[in-house]
C-alpha cells in the first residue's frame, strides 16, 4: 500500500526538478501526494489538510538553487514540520505526591491493563518506587484476575475489592491503603470505555475528582484510524489528561493517529508500547515517529537515489 509512495513522489518531484524556487504551481502535485500519504498513514483528513497547508506556506518561495534538490528540500520541510508537531523533547511522568497517583484511561482493548503493569515494573526497577496496582475495572470478565496475574509477574501487589461495584470507592480505598502501607506510587487501571458513553465517562471523571491523581494517561492503540481525534478530544475534555501512551507499535502500522492526537490535544506522548511482555515499553521519540508516519525510510532512500 505504501510502497508506491516513492514512485508518486518521483512523479511529483519531476515537476519540481530544475526549477529555481518552489512555487504554488510546481509544488501542488507534491503536496497532494504528501497529503495522500498522510491519510494512508491514518492521519486525520482535516489534520492532513491543515498540515499540508502549513508545509506549503513554509515551502513557498524557498530557493532551491543550492546543493539540495527541490525534492530533498520538500522532504526536509515536511519531516521537520512533522517532528516539531510531534513535540520536542520527551516529557517525564509526574511522580510528585505521596503517594503519586497515576490514572489510566482509554477505549476498550487499547492496552491499559498491560501498560499499568509495564509502568509499575519500570518505575519499580529504574526509580526504586514501591508501586501498588489498583483494579478499578469492575466490568470486563476476569479484568481483576488479569491485573493480578500481571502483578504476580512483576512482583507488585494488586489492590482489588471483589464484588464492590463502586469504582470511585475502590480508588479511594486504594489510596488510603497505599498510604498505610508505604506505597509511594499508585497506578489505577480502569475499564475501557467509549467517549460517548455518558455513564462511564462520568465514572472516570468522578474517580479523578475523588483522588486527584498527579498524572492521567490516555492509552491509545497506534493502529487507530480517523476516529482517534474524536476520542482524544472527548477524553481530554472530560479528564484534561497529562499525557498519551501509544501502544502496539511493534506492529507495522504507520501510526498517523499520533499526529492527529497531537494536533487536537497538544499533550505529550510519554511512552510507547512495543510488545506484550512487561519490559516492552520505550520513551517516545518524535523524530522516529515522524519518519514512521511518512514512511521516511522509503522516501529518504528514494531521494538519495534520485
Amino acid at each position, binding site marked *: 500500500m505504501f510502497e508506491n509512495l516513492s514512485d508518486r513522489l518521483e512523479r511529483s518531484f519531476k515537476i519540481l526538478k530544475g526549477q529555481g524556487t518552489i512555487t504554488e504551481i510546481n509544488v501542488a502535485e507534491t503536496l497532494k501526494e504528501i497529503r495522500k500519504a498522510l491519510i494512508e498513514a491514518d492521519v486525520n483528513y482535516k489534520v492532513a489538510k491543515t498540515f499540508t497547508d502549513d508545509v506549503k506556506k513554509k515551502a513557498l518561495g524557498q530557493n532551491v538553487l543550492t546543493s539540495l534538490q527541490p525534492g530533498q528540500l520538500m522532504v526536509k520541510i515536511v519531516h521537520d514540520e512533522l517532528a516539531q508537531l510531534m513535540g520536542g523533547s520527551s516529557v517525564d511522568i509526574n511522580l510528585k505526591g505521596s503517594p503519586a497517583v497515576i490514572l489510566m484511561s482509554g477505549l*476498550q482493548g487499547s492496552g491499559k491493563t498491560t501498560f499499568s503493569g509495564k509502568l509499575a515494573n519500570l518505575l519499580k526497577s529504574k526509580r526504586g518506587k514501591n508501586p501498588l496496582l489498583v483494579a478499578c475495572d469492575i466490568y470486563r470478565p476476569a479484568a481483576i484476575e488479569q491485573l493480578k496475574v500481571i502483578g504476580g509477574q512483576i512482583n507488585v501487589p494488586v489492590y482489588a475489592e471483589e464484588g464492590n461495584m463502586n469504582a470511585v470507592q475502590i480508588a479511594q480505598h486504594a489510596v488510603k491503603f497505599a498510604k498505610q502501607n508505604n506505597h509511594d506510587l499508585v497506578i489505577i487501571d480502569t475499564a475501557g470505555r467509549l467517549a460517548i458513553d455518558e455513564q462511564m465517562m462520568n465514572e472516570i471523571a468522578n474517580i479523578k475528582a475523588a483522588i486527584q491523581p498527579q498524572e492521567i494517561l490516555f492509552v491509545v492503540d497506534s493502529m487507530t484510524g480517523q476516529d482517534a481525534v474524536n476520542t482524544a478530544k472527548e477524553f481530554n475534555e472530560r479528564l484534561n489528561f497529562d499525557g498519551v501512551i501509544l501502544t502496539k507499535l*511493534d506492529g507495522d502500522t*504507520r501510526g498517523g493517529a499520533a499526529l492527529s492526537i497531537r494536533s487536537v490535544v497538544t499533550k505529550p506522548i510519554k511512552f510507547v508500547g512495543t510488545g506484550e511482555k512487561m519490559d516492552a515499553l520505550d520513551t517516545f521519540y518524535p523524530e522516529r515517529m515522524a519518519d514512521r508516519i511518512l514512511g521516511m525510510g522509503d522516501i529518504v532512500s528514494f531521494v538519495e537515489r534520485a
Partner: protein
Amino acid sequence: AKTKSNVFAKLSRAVAGKSKVDDEVLDNLEEVLVTSDVGIDTTLRIIDRIEKRVARDKYINTAELNAILKEEIAALLAENNKETEADFEAALTKKPYVIMVVGVNGVGKTTTIGKLAYQFKKAGKKVYLGAADTFRAAAVEQLVIWGERVGVPVVKQQMGSDPASVAFDTLTSATSNDADVVIIDTAGRLHNKVNLMNELTKIKNVMQKVVPDAPHEVLLVLDGSTGQNAFEQAKQFTKATHVTALAITKLDGTAKGGVVIGISDQFHIPVRYIGLGEKMEDLQLFDREQFVETLFEQQ
C-alpha cells in the same frame, strides 16, 4: 442517538439539476469516505464508479444520487453465503461446525466468541468453546466466565500450554459429546510476527487430526476503530489461515469501520457479524445496506 447528518443534503444541493458530478460533490464525498476510514484507494475507486454511473444514467435528482452512491458502495462488500451459517437458526452444514477466531491484540475476539455462543445456544445448538489463548494474562478465566454467563462448556488447559493441544482437546470433547458448534479462541497476535502466525497454521493442522475439514470457518475479528492497518491484518491472517469471514467490533462507538469495504472487496471475504457493545446480546448479523447507511450518518 444518531441523527441523519446533512451530508446527503450537502451532496444533493451540489448536484441538483446538473448532469455531471462536480468537484464540490466529489470533495464532500471524499471527506465522508476518508473520515470513515475507507482509505484513499477505495475512495477514489468509489468516486470513479459514481462518475461513470452518473455519466451513463444522465440523471439526476437527489434521491437517485443517494441510491447510486449506496449501491456502488454496497457492491464492493462481498456477498454472504446465504444458505449457510449467517443465520444462527439455519442448519449448519457440518457437525460439529468448527469456527476458529483470530485477530490482532485487543480487537474483541474473546467477547465476540461469548456473543456467538449466546446466539447459537439461543438458536438451540449445542456449543463448545476452546480456550486456546494460553498466553495472555487471565485469558482462560475470561473465556470461562463467558462460558458460565452463556451456559456452555469451555475446554481448557494450564496457562502456557500448547494452544494446538487445547484445540485438539476441544474438538475431541465436542465430537464425543455430539456438539453442533465449536468455537476456538486464540491469543491476539500482530500479523507481522512470523512465529505467532505460524502457530495459527499449526493449530489449524492439529484440529484436522480430529475433524479433517476443520476449521469450517476462520473468523478474523477487526476492531472497527482501526485504520488502514486492517488491510495488512486481513492480508497476513488470510495468508496464514485462509480467513473465510470478518467480524467488525466496537461499532457502538463513533468509528465507522469503513476500512472493511476495501478489504471485503480486495480479498473477497464477507463481513458476517458486527459487535455493538460489551454485553452478550450486542452482536448482529452484518447488513450491507444498513452499514452503508450509517457511513453517512454523523453523531
